[in-house]
């Protein structure tokens, strides 16, 4: 079995290639080719895992959850690389960036991708930490890509706040390791997730409780859970739009994956502790995001706050638990990645057309860029949970989990916040899409290369929302199966 090494080597090879390739087109081609191959291999591995069970050898471990994440990461990465051809190419043509920056963009994207892939395929929780810290380091350059004062500020904040949070998570890992070697003795497998899961009931609950709090706060910083979210809107709004999509759709999920690994172990050891914490952070994030969505002035920040909201919803889903809650949370993870990717692409097209991020200065997108405008509007409907898109299914499942657990207060708050966010979000977006066209903006939509991935993404969430295809539900069901209480 070398398939996992292949998954890690491809982005590395592409990154090395990017370092040497001389032209714009060759850079783009190598990135497209590499990411495409990556997606296919990851898909093959994923199907294999779903059919034949987890793959585990040397440092690697890929189970259904990892395969699910691999699929999201590689697919979104492919979409982002396709979209980048249009977006970063536009910047290059406008002379906003030079070839050096152009090359370093593709290089850093591949390294960023590499670290995220490493997060989901490694078995050792310590190495997972190293990889998650690696994602921060690799993406900091991308956040500060434009080298303006605001982007440097955002990158610095991102680096410092996330490194701080991650440091806390490291303390949590130390504690987990301490409780593990108490059972096993000093063994090199004591930090491996498979080992930890098998000995979870014997672990010291005091250690594990404290460890989970630290992990939740630490990785939660990276996930963007309130109140540790402060870096997120800055980084998302300052990064180039394809990177915003990558951050929001994949990075946040990767960090969440880090929490989930510990969540499973903690739930097996001290049932009920981790879920309560998830519940609290989830509701808090939703409430905070709602307030900021109402007051938003910058559309990329609006989308960023919506990411915080969705991370809150996912957290709530896992917190409510049970098969239906976990099912909802997983559907939400998937659909949010697809939909948010679509929205950031739309935002990127608008930004390049209007040259402003302020919502007050963007009017009449539908008449200037008909396809982008329509896609943006549909995306906004999807992200706020309107049927027939797939987020609706996730949100309803989570509501159902709340009601069946008799958590009426939580469910009520959840529903109220969803309604508020729906109203505020649609208000902002519809003002941008309709209305009298801003003066001085020439008509003409973005090129087809940027529209194809958007259409594709919309197609996916629509198909899942309408038909709920069996392969998809099977996959989610299998992934839910590895969570305690996640079997039907």
């Amino acid at each position, binding site marked *: 079995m070398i398939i996992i090494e292949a998954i890690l080597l491809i982005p590395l090879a592409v990154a090395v290639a990017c370092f040497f390739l001389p032209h714009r087109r060759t850079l783009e081609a190598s990135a497209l080719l590499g990411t495409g191959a990556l997606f296919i291999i990851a898909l093959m591995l994923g199907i294999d895992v779903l059919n034949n069970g987890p793959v585990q050898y040397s440092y690697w471990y890929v189970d259904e959850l990892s395969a699910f994440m691999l699929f999201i990461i590689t697919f979104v990465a492919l979409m982002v690389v396709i979209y980048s051809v249009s977006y970063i190419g536009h910047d290059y043509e406008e002379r906003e960036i030079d070839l050096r920056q152009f090359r370093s963009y593709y290089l850093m994207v591949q390294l960023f991708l590499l670290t995220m892939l490493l997060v989901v395929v490694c078995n*050792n929780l*310590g*190495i997972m*930490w*190293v990889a998650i*810290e*690696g994602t*921060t*380091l690799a993406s*900091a*350059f991308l956040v*500060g890509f434009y*080298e*303006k*004062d*605001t982007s*440097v*500020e*955002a*990158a*610095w*904040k991102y*680096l*410092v706040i996330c*490194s*701080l949070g991650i*440091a806390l998570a*490291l*303390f949590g*890992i*130390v*504690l987990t*390791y*301490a409780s593990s*070697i108490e059972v096993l003795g*000093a063994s*090199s497998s*004591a*930090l491996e997730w498979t080992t930890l899961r098998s000995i979870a009931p014997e672990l*010291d609950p*005091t*250690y594990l409780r*404290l460890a989970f709090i630290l992990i939740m706060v630490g990785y939660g910083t990276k996930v963007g859970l309130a109140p540790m979210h402060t870096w997120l*809107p*800055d980084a998302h*709004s*300052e990064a180039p739009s394809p990177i915003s999509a990558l951050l929001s759709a994949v990075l946040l999920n990767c960090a969440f994956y880090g929490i989930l690994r510990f969540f499973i172990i903690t739930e097996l050891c001290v049932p009920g502790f981790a879920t309560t914490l998830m519940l609290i952070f989830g509701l808090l994030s939703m409430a905070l995001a709602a307030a*900021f969505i109402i*007051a*938003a*002035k910058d559309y990329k*920040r609006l989308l960023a706050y919506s990411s915080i909201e969705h991370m809150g919803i996912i957290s709530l889903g896992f917190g409510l638990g049970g098969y239906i809650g976990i099912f909802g949370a997983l559907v939400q993870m998937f659909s949010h990645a697809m939909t948010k990717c679509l929205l950031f692409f739309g935002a990127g097209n608008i930004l390049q057309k209007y040259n402003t991020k302020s919502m007050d200065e963007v009017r009449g997108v539908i008449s200037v860029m008909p396809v982008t405008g329509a896609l943006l509007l549909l995306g906004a409907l999807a992200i706020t949970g309107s049927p027939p898109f797939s987020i609706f299914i996730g949100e309803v499942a989570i509501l159902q989990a709340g009601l069946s657990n008799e958590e009426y207060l939580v469910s009520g708050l959840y529903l109220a916040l969803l309604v508020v966010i729906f109203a505020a979000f649609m208000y902002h977006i519809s003002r941008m899409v309709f209305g009298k066209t801003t003066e001085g903006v020439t008509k003409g939509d973005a090129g087809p290369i940027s529209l194809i991935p958007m259409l594709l993404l919309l197609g996916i969430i629509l198909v899942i929302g309408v038909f709920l295809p069996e392969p998809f539900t099977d996959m989610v069901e299998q992934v839910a199966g590895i969570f305690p209480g996640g079997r039907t």
Partner: protein
Amino acid sequence: MNEQALTGVINGLAAFILLTAFVMVSHNRMNQLVRTFAIQSIALGAFAFAVAYYTGSDHIYVIAVLTIVLKGIVIPQFLKYTIDKIHVRKEVEPLVGIPLSLLLCAGLVMVAYYVAEPIIAGADAVTRNTLAISVAVVLIGFFLMITRRKAMSEIIALLVIENGIFLGAISITYGMPLIVEIGIFFDVLVAVLIMGLFAFRINQTFETLDTTFMRRLKD
């Protein structure tokens, strides 16, 4: 060396590491901050050596050497180079006065003691008592981060937190698996390099290293 003397040395080094954290709080010059950080890291390396000698495990020796070389020499030299290269005012300019900072940090040590107590009660390593010190160093690092708003001092605060966690890892588990430790060292090194690079950029774009100037991004 007999066991008692060895635990004496281990405890003494832990106390010394805590002391250096306090000394850092009392500094008002960037260069002093870097120097004390180097001293702290070397003490941490010595601590790891003592623990390695006590437990006789080879991989802690490796960690000790790495700590001294990377955190004690390479990183401080790099930070010093960055500070010299960026011609800015070298005062730390704390937001909270030094006497009050010191007292607050002493309070943090007490908090650390209470936080660490339940864990210490459950552990059986000889070095378990130093866990409270490690928590204290982490908390003091956070305090430095909050009250010293310059890019360079934020980097050092982050490194102090890292040192604290490292001390904790050796205290309760005699160090993590070697591959993880090496990964962590790699991350720390890369993080410092990248942050140093960004410090240059901040200096270019804001003409100061004071991060309180960075208030453009808000809602």
